[in-house]
């Protein structure tokens, strides 16, 4: 078609375009133009109706135009920065060189514009940005600044690294394998530093490691992936639209549904190093389909050695490493191969536990020391331990977050409608802030992130708290936030921090005239719990405050009221006012009965609490039916895997064990132990409590071997979990000593008690004066070992410390025995009488019978045969039917003494 024909087309089109389709066809038939012209006009008329070409470009190609908005930056001024050339494109956006040019100094920087998908992403990005800004390490490109450009596109300003990617750098300099590893070590250090701040890179690849002019490797793009992932726990291998992420470097958990964590970086570091030394990337994705790619990514990484051997460029690769092919093969096949295989294991638990270990192993390799990667059994066991441990951490964190969450969602109640509306608005804002806080804690509490030893839940919380506290300016929101932080600290056992935050929350609520609110009451309650945990007398005052506040808000029976009553009862234990305490428990039970019924889980839990109070009084026979009932209701109302049900089983099992109901005890203690093990793992305090009580049960049964095995295990676990110098570890020793004692192995018992005393009297453990009990036990062992002098010294020391009722009785009784051996009969008698007096109200058969035995022995030594025999018969009748194994020992001793007394009587007759 030429211009003449076109002008004819144009003429016809203009004339016909407004006519109806029929008229158009008719007109075209009448026209006597060439077929080409008519055909074109016909096509144009038809096409006009198709709207294939839109009114404007923006309508035609919105996605492309969106993209343009994001990439268009060059020459623009963003804050003090002038955008220059595009220097990179990847991950989540485009990176430009830029210059800061405000007045005095010029600075070259890299600016990354980030494409966001949703407003939530923007908020997350902002939070993450602040975290990243704190990341300072000589081998990490620093995040200098950031913000939003006028179009609302967020950007990051980073240190500009004038360098080349690490693989090119190494190749150009023909670095040897060792040289490459040395070049790589600072990268590991950088990643490790980030991990200590809970930041995971997730996209470590050659392009993200630049080596500057000084030969310093610098890691770029830190944590951006996480900042943007919709679901922080799982990053998609590609982001929508053009922001493609090459998946060749992805860890298997990044495509599967595994959690991303520091182990992901370990994998990617291993992959990168493997590529650096072997010259062949681990994965060639080529033109694989998406499904093939996913399958490929889940497959084990081929050993660098095999990759090299199969490569057609093997000779050249070796040359670029300044060595021969055989030498390179030897290096890749040895320990280095093991290290890389371990770093890149498909199963995260099989990898190095943290990147420092990878670095250590590489340093060992460089200095020809044996590497850890060669010992699969030990690391596998270790990683398995970490994995088990992780569950417990996650479970306890989840629990404390649930607690704080419940507080945050309580609703402010007031009478005036208007006030209510205003408060509701404030509440919404407050909740948003609190939620944000919780989310930030939760996000960081990624158990995989916290698997590094030096990262504790406490430091997570400190980071999160610092992030939130500064940003809140509304006092009510601040109060709610402090409340949540305090609650979380309390859950972590950090009572001092908890107290500080909760006091601040209470003060703020008061200042704001909110001391008659649910939040105020909840905060007072939490603080009461904090003081309770710290054994401070103030707990009662605060629980009472919470209770009265809640009662004033509404006398209606409800969970908060019951909770407050139960906590108040617990705090009242320090007053020793038994009637009032039991009364308070009963009030709680009544309230629960009226709002939830007597067959509810709440009722079961409250019964359990009342029961454990009776337990603390030693009123075991009163406790037993309560424990049975609590467990029965619990079994009906709770899920089988509810830890509270296991706790009720533990209570029932313990009291059954201590009251000689060994069948019930065996079943329930086993059940509690199994459930706790599943729920919390085998190192949680509750699991350990069940373990300890099982060892006590075996002691009651006289099954010495089992008892000692469990007691030893208990000591070991406490050592592992709390550290060998902790008061808890002392408890493990003490328990083991008691076990040896009841097995008649007094030397070992004495040694165990000494261990416990040593820990408890260490100045590092101030305020732990539980050593009194262990002094008594040690004294008892010394008596049995025939060292009355040392024993009496131990008892004297014990007297200067707090002693429990049972321990006091034992101390008196064994001191009497020691005096007896020293021939100090008067003193012995008064001590034995003291023991018997002390034992009577405790209603413990063995304790009383033991005191009677000792008194009888003292009387016997004074030739008061009749009185001795009377005591012995009394003791005998007490223990005759006792199911406890110890009763048998006692019975033997009683009978021996009795026969002595009878023989004496016969002689004197």
């Amino acid at each position, binding site marked *: 078609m030429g211009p003449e024909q076109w002008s004819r087309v144009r003429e016809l089109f*203009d004339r016909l*375009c407004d006519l109806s389709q029929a008229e158009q066809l008719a007109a075209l038939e009448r026209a006597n133009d060439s077929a080409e012209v008519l055909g*074109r006009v016909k096509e144009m008329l038809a096409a006009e109706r198709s709207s294939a070409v839109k009114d*404007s470009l*923006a309508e035609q190609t919105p996605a492309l135009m969106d993209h*343009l*908005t994001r990439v268009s930056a060059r020459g623009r001024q963003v804050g003090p920065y002038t955008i220059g050339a595009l220097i990179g494109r990847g991950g989540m956006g485009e990176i430009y060189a830029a210059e800061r040019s405000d007045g005095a100094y010029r600075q070259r920087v890299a600016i990354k514009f980030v494409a966001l998908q949703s407003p939530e992403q923007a908020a997350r990005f902002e939070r993450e940005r602040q975290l990243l800004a704190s990341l300072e390490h000589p081998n990490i490109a620093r995040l200098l600044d950031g913000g939003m450009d006028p179009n609302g596109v967020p950007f990051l300003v980073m240190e500009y690294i004038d360098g080349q990617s690490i693989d090119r750098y190494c190749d150009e300099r023909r670095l040897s394998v060792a040289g490459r590893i040395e070049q790589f070590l600072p990268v590991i250090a950088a990643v490790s530093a980030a991990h200590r701040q809970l930041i995971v890179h997730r996209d470590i690849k050659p392009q993200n490691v630049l080596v500057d002019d000084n030969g310093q490797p610098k890691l770029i793009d830190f944590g951006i992936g996480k900042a943007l992932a919709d679901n922080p726990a799982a990053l998609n291998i590609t982001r*929508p639209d053009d922001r493609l992420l090459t998946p060749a470097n992805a860890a298997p958990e990044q495509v599967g549904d595994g959690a991303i964590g520091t182990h992901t970086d370990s994998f990617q570091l291993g992959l990168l190093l493997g590529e650096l030394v072997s010259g062949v990337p681990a994965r060639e994705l080529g033109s694989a389909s998406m499904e093939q790619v996913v399958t490929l990514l889940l497959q084990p990484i081929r050993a660098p050695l095999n990759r090299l051997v199969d490569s057609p460029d093997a000779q050249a690769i070796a040359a670029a490493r300044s060595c021969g092919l055989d030498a390179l093969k030897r290096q890749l096949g040895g320990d280095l191969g093991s290290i890389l295989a371990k770093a890149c294991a498909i199963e995260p638990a099989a990898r190095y536990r943290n990147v420092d270990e990878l670095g250590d192993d590489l340093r060992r390799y460089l200095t020809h020391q044996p590497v850890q990667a060669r010992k699969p059994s030990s690391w596998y066991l270790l990683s398995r331990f970490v994995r088990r441990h992780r569950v417990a951490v996650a479970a306890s964190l989840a629990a404390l977050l649930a607690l704080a969450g419940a507080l945050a969602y309580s609703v402010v109640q007031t009478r005036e409608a208007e006030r209510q509306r205003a408060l509701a608005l404030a509440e919404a804002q407050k909740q948003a802030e609190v939620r944000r806080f919780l989310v930030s804690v939760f996000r960081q509490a990624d158990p995989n992130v916290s698997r590094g030893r030096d990262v504790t839940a406490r430091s997570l919380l400190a980071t999160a708290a610092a992030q939130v506290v500064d940003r809140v300016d509304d006092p009510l929101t601040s109060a709610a936030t402090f409340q949540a932080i305090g609650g979380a600290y309390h859950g972590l056992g950090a009572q001092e921090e908890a107290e500080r935050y909760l006091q601040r929350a209470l003060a703020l609520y008061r200042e704001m005239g909110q001391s008659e609110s649910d939040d105020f009451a909840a905060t007072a309650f939490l603080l009461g719990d904090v003081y309770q945990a710290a054994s401070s007398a103030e707990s009662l005052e605060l629980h009472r405050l919470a209770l009265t506040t809640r009662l004033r808000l509404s006398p209606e029976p409800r969970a908060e009221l019951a909770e407050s009553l139960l906590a108040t009862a617990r705090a009242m234990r320090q007053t020793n006012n038994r009637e009032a305490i039991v009364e308070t428990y009963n009030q709680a039970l009544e309230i629960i009965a009226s709002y939830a019924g007597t067959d509810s889980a709440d009722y079961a839990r409250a019964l359990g609490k009342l029961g454990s109070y009776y337990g603390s009084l030693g009123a075991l026979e009163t406790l037993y039916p309560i424990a049975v009932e609590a467990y029965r209701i619990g079994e009906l109302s709770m899920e089988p895997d509810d830890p509270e049900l296991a706790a009720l089983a533990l209570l029932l099992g313990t009291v059954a064990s201590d009251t000689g109901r060994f069948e019930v005890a065996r079943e329930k203690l086993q059940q509690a132990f199994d459930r706790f093990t599943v729920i919390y793992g085998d190192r949680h305090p509750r699991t350990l409590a069940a373990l300890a009580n099982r060892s006590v049960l075996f002691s009651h049964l006289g099954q010495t071997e089992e008892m000692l095995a469990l007691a030893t295990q208990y000591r070991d676990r406490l050592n592992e979990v709390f550290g060998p110098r902790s008061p808890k570890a002392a408890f493990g020793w003490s328990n083991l000593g008691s076990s040896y004692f009841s097995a008649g192995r007094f030397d070992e018992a004495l040694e165990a008690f000494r261990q416990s005393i040593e820990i408890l009297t260490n100045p590092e453990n101030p305020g732990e004066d539980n050593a009194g009990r262990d002094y008594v036990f040690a004294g008892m062992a010394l008596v049995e070992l025939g060292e009355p002098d040392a024993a009496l010294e131990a008892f004297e020391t014990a007297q200067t410390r707090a002693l429990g009722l049972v321990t006091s009785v034992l101390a008196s009784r064994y001191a009497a025995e020691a005096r007896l051996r020293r021939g100090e009969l008067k003193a012995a008698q008064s001590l034995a009488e003291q023991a018997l007096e002390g034992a009577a109200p405790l209603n413990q058969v063995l304790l009383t019978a033991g005191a009677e035995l000792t008194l009888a022995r003292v009387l016997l030594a004074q030739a008061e045969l009749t009185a001795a025999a009377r005591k012995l018969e009394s003791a005998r009748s007490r223990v005759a039917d006792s199911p406890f194994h110890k009763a048998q020992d006692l019975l033997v001793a009683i009978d021996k003494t009795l026969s002595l007394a009878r023989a004496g009587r016969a002689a004197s007759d």
Partner: protein
Amino acid sequence: MSDQPSSSSSDSLTGRLNRDWRDDLAPEVYQELRVIAHAQLRSQRRNATLNTTALVNEAYLKLGTRQRHWKDRKHFYATMAKVMRQVVIDLARRHSAAKRDGGVRLSLEVLDRGELRWQELSEVIAIDAALEKLGELDPYLEQVLELRYFAGMSVADVAEVLQRSEPTIKRDFRAARAFLASELTSELASEAAGANGGEGAASEPPGRS
């Protein structure tokens, strides 16, 4: 008819345009361009304004480094529109190429959106090719379409820049658009035929015939 209908401002605009784009006055020119671009797009897609701003920005930068002298207002806008067209087409081509050799870089999740984008990209590239064809037949219509479609200018503004009446521009745009649409329709038809027949036009760059 005068060369410069809305005298003073255009005068100074042309004057300003002839300075280096890094000069202090350059931002004013840029600002003016943006205002023009915005005004036309207010009624369209919500973020169209944003898009045009970006496009103007890109085009202006491209212009700034290679073209500094303007005969008149018409020359400036025509060039600007052409550059904007180039920016868009370059971008579309780049992405289209990236998609061709980077199929693996699309996740399953993105696949649906990816198809959409693919269609968008080939459409824009096809429109460019068709417009080139139109330009061989009728350079004036090509210019109308560039101003109206790629630079996003209103009928009134195009009329003013090209010194024509508004109804004329309307008719011109309609014809140009119909021509492009007819090219695209036959392009799609041949592509479909190619896909069905196994070998055919599908592997050809779209729109070149």
